[in-house]
């Protein structure tokens, strides 16, 4: 597949066009990556496909090999792996807080101590999630902008 980048004037809309012989998984993956860079993630809920704004996602969890996006009042399944999302969403203030979980730092309302040096994060949705002690150091560094 050839890749061509064309610069356009500010007045014209930016567009990524994929010209392909067939819409394969690879093509879908590329499209999904571009959408995520633009600020949305593809996800399914009740067998329907949605484009979810990254800013609406409170946290992301991997359960039994499947990845789920949690917004204030809905859960979406996504084709991404948690490690892919970790890299992809780093600039969008997402951080790994447990082995199977990423959190949107902008959605944390408060942090409380839990047992054994762990912490509980209360999200703006009201949900409480555990911050594993192995990731507390990374959380501190992220909040300091390191």
């Amino acid at each position, binding site marked *: 597949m050839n890749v061509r980048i064309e610069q356009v004037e500010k007045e014209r809309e930016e567009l990524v066009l994929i010209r392909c012989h067939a819409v394969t998984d690879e093509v879908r993956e590329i499209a999904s990556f571009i959408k995520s860079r633009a600020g949305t993630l593809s996800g399914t809920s009740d067998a329907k496909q949605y484009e979810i704004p990254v800013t609406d996602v409170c946290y992301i969890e991997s359960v039994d090999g499947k990845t789920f996006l949690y917004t204030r009042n809905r859960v979406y399944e996504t084709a991404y792996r948690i490690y892919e999302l970790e890299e992809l969403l780093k600039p969008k203030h997402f951080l790994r807080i447990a082995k199977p979980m990423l959190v949107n730092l*902008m959605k944390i309302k*408060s942090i409380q*101590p839990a047992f054994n040096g762990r912490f509980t994060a209360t999200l703006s949705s009201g949900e409480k999630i555990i911050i594993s002690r192995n990731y507390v150091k990374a959380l*501190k560094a992220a909040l300091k902008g390191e």
Partner: protein
Amino acid sequence: MEFKRFLVNKLILFFMLSTLITVAIVLIGSAFDPEAQFGYKDMPVPIEYAALCMLPTFVTWSKRELSPKVLLVRKAIMLVLIEGVILFIAFMSDVIDTSRIGVVLAIAGSVLVIFVLANLFVWLKDAAEAKKLNRELEAFQKLHG
């Protein structure tokens, strides 16, 4: 939790317990047997007790992240096991007069107090850390919001 980190935490707990057990022995001894004399062979007793108390703490070890509820249950099991270990030592000992119910209750009570204090110290440390994290989180959200 990494096993190495778990062991480091247990080492911190071990030193904390050694100190608290020494204090408990002083308090219980002063109340029930103020005339007792000790030699060099008795000096490692708090360390030995602390080491034995460490064994039941391994019930809180898990490779997977435990939910607060499960951890609370495991901590309760740990307390029961520690009480069992200490009371077993007391009943096996020749120098501790376990025929006096007051002595047995004082030992069991001091184990409970030490357990609560050790957990309280850890909680207070975590609460101070959480307060700092909340301040940093607020600043982060203001900056990027």
